[in-house]
């Protein structure tokens, strides 16, 4: 059974998907494998969960998709748009700020 992630993980799949798609276009299965690899399996998603995120990102213009036939199957490849790159930049800044804040709070708490 896939290990579940805590509730504060909300928004993390979106950030990771944008980050990975910033490198190259990928389809769903490839993306899940890449997330596992890039995070040393620290983040394990119920694999179906990425599709609602991908469709929402495409809907808001952050991603675009195209179909490609590969080994007898039609894959839907996703890639980042200009809007997606802007969104990635914003999410990355938000994440670093929050991560820094939480780290500071934890260190202060530990030293108190």
């Amino acid at each position, binding site marked *: 059974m896939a290990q579940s992630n805590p509730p504060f993980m909300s928004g993390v799949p979106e950030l990771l998907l944008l980050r990975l798609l910033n490198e190259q276009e990928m389809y769903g299965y490839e993306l899940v494998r890449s997330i596992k690899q890039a995070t040393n399996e620290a983040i394990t998603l*119920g694999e*179906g969960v990425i599709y609602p995120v991908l469709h929402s990102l495409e809907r*808001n213009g952050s991603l675009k998709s195209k179909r490609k036939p590969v080994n007898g199957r039609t894959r839907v490849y996703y890639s980042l748009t200009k809007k997606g790159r802007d969104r990635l930049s914003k999410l990355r800044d938000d994440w670093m700020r929050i991560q820094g804040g939480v780290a500071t709070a934890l260190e202060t708490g530990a030293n108190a």
Partner: protein
Amino acid sequence: MREPDFSELATRLLKSGISPRHAHRTVNELRDHYDDLVDAAVDEGANSKNARLSAANELGAMDDFVAEMASRRELKTWAFRYPRLAIIVYPIACLAVLPAMPVFVGIAHRTALVRWGASLLAAGVVTAMLLLIMQLSIILG
């Protein structure tokens, strides 16, 4: 976990208001993803049954998937996004389209319509000829 039923999944997504475009494409992607997981498990040495069970496990519960899709307003049809507006617009649209329906139906079934018209014409000609013969027989008789 049992094997996912993708046709049932599509129906559930549509019932929860997801637009047909997103519902069908997501189900197709999910089916391909499942097949990839099965192939990967078989490559690692699992037998077919265990590979399918493992793939279903990794894919996650379909209930969670439907809930996740349904929580995203942007993936829904406009009638589900704006239900109050739909209640007003749908009846008006139906009333507006109603007078044009015979034309649309006629275009859609034009071959049947042509056959029906030809039969009607033939019947009319035969009836007219019979009436003419009767009239002539009265006049000449």
